[in-house]
């Protein structure tokens, strides 16, 4: 079973502050993803990565940066946090080459921006 961990699990931040959410996967997957989940919107893709050193914009990248320094680690960075970024953030990993491939999700991080 794929193992994806996230830290912190809960975070309270102030408006204008910098927030870094970390994700680690131990299954050597090439692809990693950051989503946010909000009531009424389901899961939406923020950034993703095909491997170390690469980051790509997802569907809602504004206000977020991403960093993939290694195969195992993928970070989501909020340089200037805003209350609208209060949400639950999920990291996922997976290889993608065919119709049966899937993504493995971390436990999520609850972020509250005051």
């Amino acid at each position: 079973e794929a193992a994806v961990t996230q830290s912190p699990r809960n975070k309270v931040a102030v408006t204008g502050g910098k927030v870094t959410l970390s994700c680690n996967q131990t299954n050597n997957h090439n692809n990693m993803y950051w989503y946010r989940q909000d009531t009424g919107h389901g899961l939406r893709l923020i950034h993703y990565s095909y491997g170390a050193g690469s980051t790509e914009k997802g569907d809602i990248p504004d206000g977020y940066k991403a960093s993939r320094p290694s195969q195992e680690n993928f970070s989501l960075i909020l340089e200037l946090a805003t209350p609208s970024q209060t949400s639950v953030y999920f990291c996922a990993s997976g290889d993608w080459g065919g119709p049966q491939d899937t993504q493995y999700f971390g436990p999520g991080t609850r972020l509250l921006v005051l």
Partner: protein
Amino acid sequence: GQQVQQSPASLVLQEGENAELQCNFSSTATQLQWFYQSPGGSLVSLLSNPSGTKHTGRLTSTTVTKERRSSLHISSSQTTDSGTYLCAIALNYNQGKLIFGQGTKLSIKP
């Protein structure tokens, strides 16, 4: 408009009844997956079914690609099946970018 729509939004059943969840999507999908999200929030993949019918345990998924719809049938529901079921599609094999529906919240009463 929303590319993936799920119905119903919520469903309440008695234990032992069968559940039928629907997913309709507006674009040609190369991949379709069903996920389960527990009441605690954790997400797990249930099955991948881009076309045809697929069974795993008490779950049966039928996807009709031409009609851009998929269903998930849960037989003999149990209280532990309670949670939210998410349908997701990918438009491109190579990217692995998933587009999620808003989910169906299933509650199974003992």
